[in-house]
C-alpha cells in the first residue's frame, strides 16, 4: 500500500467526523428506522436505510467507471462465489440478531450511540466503554475459541 499510517489515521478521522456531523443532523439510526416502521408505521427514518442502499449502489456503479481497479469486486455476487461457508452465514446471522436485540434495548445502533456520546449523553459513554472493552476482550480471549467452534 502506498499510503502511510498517518494518512489513514487522518482520513479515517475526517471521514468519521463528516459521517458524525451528518448522523447528528439527520438523527440517522438503522435500528430506529426498522423499529419505527414495525411499531409506528413511520417511514421517515427508515428512508435513511433506503437512501444508503440506493445511494451506495448508484455511487458505487458510477464511480466504478472512473476507477475500476478500486472496484474489482463490484458487484460481489457476480465476482465471488457466495454462500460457500455455512459457518460464516451462521456467524453473520447470530451476530446481527444479537446486535438487533441490544440496539433496540439501548435505543440506538452502535453508530447512533457514538453520535449520542458526542452530543453529551453520558450513558452512551458508559455504553461505549463497555463496547471498546468488549472489542479488546473478544480479540484477546474469544476470537480463537469462536474460530475453532465455527471452523466448519
Amino acid at each position, binding site marked *: 500500500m502506498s499510503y502511510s499510517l498517518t494518512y489513514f489515521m487522518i482520513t*479515517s478521522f475526517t471521514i468519521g467526523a463528516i*459521517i458524525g456531523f451528518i448522523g447528528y443532523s439527520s438523527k440517522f439510526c438503522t435500528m430506529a428506522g426498522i423499529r419505527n416502521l414495525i411499531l409506528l408505521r413511520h417511514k421517515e427514518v427508515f428512508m435513511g436505510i433506503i437512501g444508503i442502499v440506493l445511494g*451506495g449502489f448508484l455511487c458505487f456503479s458510477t464511480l466504478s467507471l472512473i*476507477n475500476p481497479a478500486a472496484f474489482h469486486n463490484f458487484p460481489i455476487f457476480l465476482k465471488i462465489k457466495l454462500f460457500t461457508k455455512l459457518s460464516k452465514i451462521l456467524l453473520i446471522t447470530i451476530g446481527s*440478531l444479537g446486535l*438487533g436485540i441490544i440496539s433496540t*434495548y439501548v435505543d440506538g445502533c452502535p453508530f447512533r450511540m457514538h453520535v449520542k456520546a458526542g452530543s453529551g*449523553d453520558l450513558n452512551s459513554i458508559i455504553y461505549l466503554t463497555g463496547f*471498546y472493552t468488549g472489542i479488546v476482550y473478544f480479540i484477546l480471549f474469544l476470537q480463537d475459541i469462536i474460530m475453532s467452534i465455527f471452523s466448519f
Partner: protein
Amino acid sequence: MKIKPFYAGILFGLIFAFSQTFLGYVWKDAYAYCTIGHPRDLIFWLTSILTSSKISEYTLPLLSTFGVILGSFIASKVYREFHIVKIEKSNLFTTFALGFAAAVFGLFATFCPIRLFVLLSFGDLEVLFGIIGYTLGIFLTIKLMRR
C-alpha cells in the same frame, strides 16, 4: 432534523464510494466506515505495537469512530443543542454490559449495521442473512418489551 435521513443515507453511500475511489480504502469492499471493524483494526494495531507481534499490512489504526464522536459534538454545538445527559446510576452496569455484548455480537458478524446495508448496495448477498437477523432481533425485542 436538519437533513432528512434519506439524503443522509445517500450522502453516506457517496462517502463510502468516494473513499474507495479516491482515498485508497480498497483493501476491503465498502470499508470507509465501520463501527465494529475500525475499532477492531485499531486495537489489533495497538496490541501489535505493544507486543511487537506481526500483523497484516492492512491492519491500520483507523480512527473513524472517534471522528464520529467529534463530528456529532461539533454538530450539537453548531445547532446549540449540546447538553449533558446524566448517568442513570441504577443502569450503569447494564449499559456497560450491553455495550460489551454489542461489540461481541458485532465481531461475530464482522460488520456494523451501517456497513451491513452498504455491503448490500455493493452486491454482497450474504448480508441478507444479517439483515434478516437484525430485523428479527429488533422485532423480537419490540414484542418482548410490549408485554
